């Protein structure tokens, strides 16, 4: 799963810590998400998308190659 968190965060001039505090997770989780090392729960994906005022599918997208 790919995401545009880093790009959208930069657009809103948000730090990783600020985004983490807004969605109620640790900064480390945002770091892992941006590196693509962690797939969020639907709840967290929803909260992040809502922070950017975008639908989930515009923040997170699946690539078929990553299907287990």
């Amino acid at each position, binding site marked *: 799963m790919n995401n545009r968190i880093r790009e959208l965060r930069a657009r809103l001039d948000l730090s990783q*810590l600020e985004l*983490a*505090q807004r969605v109620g*997770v*640790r900064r*480390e*989780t945002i770091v*892992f998400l941006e590196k693509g090392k*962690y797939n969020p729960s639907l709840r967290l994906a929803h909260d992040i998308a809502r922070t950017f005022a975008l639908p989930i599918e515009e923040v997170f997208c699946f690539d078929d190659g*990553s299907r287990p």
Partner: protein
Amino acid sequence: MKKMILIFVICALLLVSLAVWALRGKVAGNALELLETGVIFILVGFAFFLGLSRVRSHLRKEPSEDEMSKRVMTKTSSLAFYVSIYLWLFIMYISDRITLPTHSLIGAGIMGMALVFLFSWLYVKAAGMRNE
């Protein structure tokens, strides 16, 4: 907060018992004891690091645990348990071939399990958790 305090209390207990053991003069100073002491210091360092990261999160007003940290711990525990079974099998295998008292073998097994947990944690952190 409770878990944070618990981690530091366990670290302190380990270090105090190590100091008491050393001060009572029961140290033989052989290679096995040096190895055990080294492993204990590594494990205490690991626990201290985990405790410190929780303190840092607390100071930054982040949750000390979130969905990812819980998932990391769950995956680490299951991986460490799986590997530990083979560790105990190995200990059972070598126990017939070397002469060590039973309490030393059990102690080595427990420390081995803690080391396996540490390496599993490092592996999960490095590899990440995609597509699960």
